[in-house]
């Protein structure tokens, strides 16, 4: 699946997007955040407060317990500040 990062999540990880293949036991958004956090310091910094992180699955807002199976694109970003 493709993973995208925005705003300070992008800056902390140092990537705009990447393709990842998490193992089958990574079932939910929350699981994926935990799995990604273990990939390196930047990831751990970006996801240090998981409750702050917002997620979109295939461009629709998702929740920590949303299953990720079948998703093609998952995005992680801070709370939104547009308008």
């Amino acid at each position, binding site marked *: 699946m493709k993973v*995208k990062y*925005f705003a*300070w999540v992008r800056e902390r990880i140092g990537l705009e997007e990447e393709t990842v293949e998490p193992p089958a036991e990574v079932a939910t958004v929350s699981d994926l955040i935990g799995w990604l956090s273990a990939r390196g310091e930047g990831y751990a910094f970006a996801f240090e407060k998981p409750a702050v992180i917002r997620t*979109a699955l295939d*461009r629709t807002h998702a929740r920590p317990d949303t299953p990720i199976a079948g998703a093609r694109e998952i995005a992680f*970003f801070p709370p*939104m*500040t*547009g*308008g």
Partner: protein
Amino acid sequence: MTVPVTIRIQEADFDIAAEIAAMTKGRTDIGAVVSFSGICRGADDGDDVAALTLEHYPGMAEDEIGRHAAEAIKRWPVTGLTIVHRVGRMLPGDNIVLVLAASAHRQAAFSAAEFLMDYLKANAPFWKREERADGTRWVEAHDRDDAAAARWGKD
């Protein structure tokens, strides 16, 4: 009748009068147009802001605003909606966002415009970064914006 909806995300500035003219051209069913503009402030919490840079999630930003527009059309008898959101670097005084809501009578247009702005601020994937004298920083989301969106009664 399908309600005409225009959604654009662009770097260029917008012309409010031209957007209203485009929305109402050839229409005789519109009796009210409410316009909201968001403008870059030169200070926030007492500190000078030299510029703002707006980042967005291409694709999702348009989709999310489209979902909000569809919801507004379900809730009120609006007859046209235009949402233009700028991205890139903006200076104090520059336009950031435009919401136009048209209807036969004013109340639906007022309500739809307010609803769209509240939803957009809390749910549309845009992020602001401020340039200040001591460096740049990402603007933090305000609880009041979530509360403003929540009062419309849908998560």
